[in-house]
């Protein structure tokens, strides 16, 4: 598998570390309550299709990357720097 790092280009997936669904970007407010944090930490969709997820280019530029990957075919539709995505979301 190969992943397009926005900084480094197409790289072997062994350079990356997988974290999980990109919902981890949206940390609840401190006063959102226990249930909101339980859902944030534990509850995940498992779609047989497009999935937004976080990868760390651990053996490269060490950027956190938001990737859109098809869980059925492992095809990547897009990769963006998580910091850019987060700033854009504001």
């Amino acid at each position, binding site marked *: *598998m*190969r*992943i397009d790092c926005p900084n480094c280009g*197409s790289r*072997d*997936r062994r350079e990356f*570390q997988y*974290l999980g669904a990109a919902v*981890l*970007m949206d*940390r*609840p407010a*401190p006063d*959102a*309550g*226990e249930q909101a*944090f*339980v859902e*944030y*930490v*534990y509850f995940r969709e498992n779609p047989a299709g497009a999935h937004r997820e*976080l990868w*760390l280019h*651990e053996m490269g530029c*060490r*950027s*956190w990357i938001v990737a859109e990957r098809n869980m059925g*075919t*492992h*095809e*990547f539709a897009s990769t963006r*720097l*998580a*910091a*850019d995505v*987060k*700033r854009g979301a*504001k």
Partner: protein
Amino acid sequence: MSRLTSGGQIDRTQPLRFSFDGKSLAGFKGDTLASALLANDIRLVGRSFKYHRPRGILSAGSEEPNALMQLGQGDQTTPNVRATTQELYDGLIAASQNRFPSLAFDLLSVNDLMAPFFGAGFYYKTFMWPKSFWEKVYEPFIRRAAGLGRLSGKADRALYDKAFAHCDLLVIGGGPAGLMAALTAARGGLDVILADEDFAFGGRLNSETVEIAGQPGAGWAAQVVTELAGMANVRLMPRTTVTGAYDGGTYAALQRVSHHLADPADHLPLETFWRIAARRTILAGGAIERPIAFANNDRPGVMMASAVRSYANRFAVLPGQKISLFTNNDDGHRTALDLLRLGADIAAVVDTRGDVAAMGDYPLITGGQVTGTSGRLGLKSITVSSASGRLKVATDCLAVSGGWNPSVHLTCHMNGRPVWREDIAAFVPADNAIPGMRVAGAANGDFSTHAALSAGAAAAAEALGDLGKPAPATVFPAAEDAPIQLEPFWHFTGSKGRAWLDLQNDVTTKDVALAHRENFRSVEHMKRYTTLGMATDQGKTSNVGGLAVMADLTQRSIPETGTTTFRPPYSPVALGALGAHGAGKDFAPSRFLPSDALARELGAHFIEMGVWYRPSLFPQSGETHWRQTCDREMRMVRSAVGITDITPFGKIDVQGADAAVLLDLVYANTMSSLKQGRVRYGVMLREDGMALDDGTCARLGEDHFVLTTTAGAASDVFAHLEFCTQVLRPELDVQFFSVTDQWAQFSIAGPRSRELVSGLCDEDISNERIPYMACAEVTIGGIGCRLFRISFSGEQSYEIAIPARYGEALARELGQRAAALGGGWYGLEALNALRIEKGYLTHAEMTGQYTADALGIGGMVSAKKDCIGKVLSQRSALVGPGKMELIGLKPVSPLKQFSGGAFLFSQGARQVLGNEEGHVTSHCYSPSLDHVIAMAFLRDGRSRLGEHIIMKDNARGIEAVCEVCPMVHVDPDGERLRG
């Protein structure tokens, strides 16, 4: 000798000697082991897997099921080498397998007489009872009787390598389609890798008499290879099998680097395992000819027709004196013509089709079938049935052609299912089975030379188009374009003898019928019940034949019957190659302390902590047990001064206007209130509320902090900070960097530590200026250093960080000064015991399963601010009664040692799993107390101080009554720290 006096692609000027089963034989450069054996009239080369039947060479390629050899000798022996792909070299030593005492007389061939009892699944039924016999009697017997080659049982000393390659276009297979594809793409400017499993490019062109552009096919191939070799954008990889197709255009390939060399240079690996990243791929892997199943079709001398042409045309060897053919298509006739041209004697051509005419001067039996054979150690005759009756034909070689199966294997590695093509009676690859891959030539069912050339060129033109380049104008070479003339014929069902489908696993048509009777009718079940298509050849010559038999039995078509799943690797890959550079010291990097050389001079014992090599003990003369050393080092620290190298602790330099904001988010306690020049102990949580790591945080300036982490958690903590700053709070103005390697760091601990350090530093480091938990920048011998007044031992203690290049010099200076004060070096054993005496945590306690509260530092979670993990650390399940709490343990009566991981039970409780109330995490002997102590998790432990409890370790047979006590055993008020 069966060697022809001229012709072929062997080099008669380079004769080679080799040995087979101890007999010295001769061959030429350009031979395979198989062709050299045939040239020496050796037809019997092995014994079969189950029945120990005599077997000969079937094929001339990697699909070979029979001719498996043990190569080399001693601990460098390699089993299951296919003689058909092994290049001959001078001094090659080969031995046949699975026979005792000799190939011609094999005692276990008695199995063949017992065949009625050894059908498919026999061991499931036969060895049912007594149960205890399976491991001791049945399995060892089966393993002795069955099987192929044997491993030496010694370590493999051979060198293996791994490598990476990138290209625009990977062409798999160097036959006519692959060569034409590579040539077109390379001329069009693509970076091309051309890989072929053979040592000579050309594929079938080397074995056939076809012409391309008016010259022999092999000559055309050589010409193309010469042009490709001269191009900078082409990498030719002969002896390289592409073994697997993976996501994103990644391919695995095994290159045999020195298997063919008589005396390889020391630096050469035996094999190199490649990962190739290709933007586009063309699979031109050709096709494999399929046998026809008939009674006793496994005798030495029964071969594939394509193999007979290979041996005759490429290697100039006639595999028999009187050769017969059995075919259902025109290839059998072409084989006869080739053999006639070379002067061979054709006994008969048996064609299953009724309406064909001879293409030359040979006896033809139309509408005929070979129904049996004779010859125990080698073929002597065949029985042919036809409309004109039964006929016995004397022959020593039968060439069989049942049509061709395209090599679809790689196209199935990503769930692709091949598609049945009725006109050629074969499976071809599904469209777009592998993203980025096109299939050309025989691999796609295009069997003529012309079709292969044009498909290769077309596929390359499409790849060029994909990558934005125009296809070059290529003069297209003329070649034969014979249509395939074939009548499907799979197996002869009329005779009583066993008809082999899978020669390697000894599976016959009767085994498939048995599977059918016992309702293992799905192809996947049939494969596993009969073992058809397993072992080293993965059914390359047997798979489709087996499907055809099952299709007949179930009265379905072959496509309805379906195929089993082809998985990587295409052909066997040695574990040594997969694990290249993954053994011994290559497995992980080795990291050495700045004081490593000094510690070795001092005779320290080392242990591996993660990737670091750290001294565990500094034994002195007369010390014969590790405890003597450890206890002395601990007393030294508590009474004078000890030094230890703590460089592996993670050090992270954090700077920026929002540095304190980040630290307040990641630490459970508040760091923004920390004053400059002060250090604070901190704990980080994961978002699920469990403790991630602990360490210190020093504020060097308003916007400048230095964190320390546990050695083992350094990379996790660093990635966590990156997550927080990039994913959660990218707006923060904060930068950080790991400076673990940049600073050598030493701990100086003990009541005389200040005496030592003040003599070193140019500045005043009095208790007033540098009190407990202070930090400062100091100079030592003119070098800027950092001084931290922190402790991991409970003693008055300093840590000095110095730029790493001065680390060793400082270490030597510290050692000398410590010695003058009655102190010296201490190792990890003492360091660990000192921290247990003081109740400090390590990752024996901070396993990721416990909250700060469980660890006894719940008070550090600030009520005034948010932090990662705060909300979930206060979940009801984690704060209610019955939760684990870390406590200390001491023995009630004399005890030799506590036991790490031992369970704790209430007195009187049944000692069974489920009743345990906690476990021991860390333990040591305390010289200060003169008895053993431990740290342990215990339910509601902090409210059970003084209670007597049972420690039970069933694995080590230790049981003891102990008392629950506070964790801090030494200096509970911290007076020594502040002194």
